[in-house]
């Protein structure tokens, strides 16, 4: 009898525990409330150590950077006048147009507040649509080939605390009139690099100074660079400057529609490789141009953007030089070496347009 009583007591206890367990407690979701006091968030502490703050690579309002782009470049008609090569007669080449696809990507390898490292690839073509007037001039004849730039690049952004940062960019490019079936040897690679130290004093301003090894003016040069990115308080106007490579004033219609006015310096040294005769002469064409332009960037859907440029291309340099075994002469704008060029050519200036489809980054 007593044992049965014990069993009943224990069972009753079990039931009480069962009913008391969370298994049976219901969350009333029909009256959910959430209470915040905005003022309570003004003066608060971190739960443990304070978060380390880092300078962001971007400022408010800056145009989005391109992860992947595919574009088409078109220049209107212009005349090219070549010097004679080794006492051969000079030549003219009338380009009805100059066209080419431009594609590239810049993919984050590491992307955190404390460091951003990106690797990229680019491929640009320049195709001259026209005919040379004198087929005996091999240098002008080479313009019947397509000039190509194939390269890889890397960018490293490292914040040094909340305001200061360093930026490094490097690239290796193969430039020439090679074909895909007959690529240039890697010994003809051109290396470019830029290193910059900067400050981001607030969310709307970013500036920096540095040094670049560049071919943008057509031949190898070491030049100082200045960065100045700024957005006004209303997020209507801004600047995006990396001088002398490019400088733009930005007008933001809204965060998905922006208009730019400014210029960009473009240029490369192209090895003449396709023609075996020219290849053996170790010739290299130096091109440098300034593009004055207006540009419209807009989002067609989420992160898919289009940028459309139209402007005027001004020739800065169009020369030819000998480079035995690819060894460059560093002229330093004539300060270090003043040797005459093998050919000092002229071209007139056309209008141009460029359209690209871009996948932009967060």
């Amino acid at each position: 009898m007593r044992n049965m009583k014990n069993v009943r007591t224990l069972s009753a206890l079990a039931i009480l525990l069962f009913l008391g367990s969370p298994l049976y407690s219901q969350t009333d979701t029909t009256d959910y409330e959430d209470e915040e006091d905005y003022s309570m968030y003004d003066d608060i502490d971190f739960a443990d150590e304070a978060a380390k703050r880092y300078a962001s690579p971007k400022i408010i309002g800056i145009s989005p950077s391109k992860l992947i782009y595919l574009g088409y470049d078109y220049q209107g008609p212009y005349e090219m006048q070549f010097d004679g090569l080794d006492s051969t007669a000079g030549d003219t080449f009338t380009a009805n147009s100059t066209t080419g696809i431009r594609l590239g990507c810049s993919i984050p390898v590491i992307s955190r507040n404390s460091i951003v490292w990106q690797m990229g690839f680019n491929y640009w073509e320049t195709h001259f649509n026209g005919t040379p007037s004198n087929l005996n001039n091999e240098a002008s004849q080479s313009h019947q080939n397509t000039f190509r730039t194939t390269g890889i690049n890397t960018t490293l952004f490292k914040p040094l605390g909340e305001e200061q940062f360093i930026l490094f960019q490097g690239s290796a490019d193969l430039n020439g009139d090679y074909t895909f079936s007959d690529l240039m040897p890697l010994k003809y690679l051109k290396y470019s690099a830029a290193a910059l130290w900067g400050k981001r004093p607030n969310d709307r301003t970013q500036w920096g100074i540095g040094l670049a090894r560049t071919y943008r003016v057509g031949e190898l040069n070491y030049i100082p660079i200045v960065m100045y990115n700024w957005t006004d308080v209303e997020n209507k106007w801004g600047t995006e400057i990396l001088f002398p490579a490019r400088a733009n004033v930005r007008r933001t219609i809204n965060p998905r529609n922006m208009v730019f006015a400014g210029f960009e310096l473009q240029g490369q040294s192209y090895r003449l490789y396709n023609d075996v005769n020219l290849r053996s002469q170790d010739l290299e064409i130096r091109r440098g141009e300034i593009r004055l332009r207006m540009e419209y960037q807009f989002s067609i859907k989420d992160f898919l953007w289009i940028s459309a440029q139209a402007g005027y291309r001004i020739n800065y340099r169009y020369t030819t030089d000998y480079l035995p075994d690819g060894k460059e002469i560093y002229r330093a704008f004539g300060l270090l070496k003043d040797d005459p060029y093998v050919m000092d050519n002229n071209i007139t200036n056309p209008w141009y347009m460029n359209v690209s489809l871009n996948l932009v980054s967060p």
Partner: protein
Amino acid sequence: MIKKATILSLFSILILGISSFTFQTKDGGDRLIGVWEPSNGRARVKINKIGSKYFGKIVWLKEPKDPVSGKPKTDKNNPDESMRNVPLRGYRMLKDFIYKGDDVWEEGTIYDPLNGSTYNCTIKMTNKNTLDIRGYIGVSALGRTDVWKRLKIKKKKGRKRGRK
């Protein structure tokens, strides 16, 4: 027979006791609940749970007022023009996160009110007071990770309603 009944009851109590203990510990996903600050210090976000998902609401802004109008900021860059009056303080910038175990919350999105863009997002709790919030487009490789830190808050009292 009596001994069997006693053992059965004791066993029931033991099982219920264990299950009660198990259900009383916080669901792993609920550790995300709290107030957090992104690394840029420009906002503070309170994460809570609605149904089975986690959402994060902006509760503080470093610059709460629009510099031009002087009024509290609203979601003026929202792609839906009809929703541009939603106040930014109180805006749910983190949405629809589901706890997947292993300190990871996935299938959510993060909204950037500066440009009106919404990104896919995953949250990883690296320690109880630190989150890695990764916003990306399509694949995780095309994104950026930000570190958020947990904050402690104190409550304040207010007036009665209808009496000013």
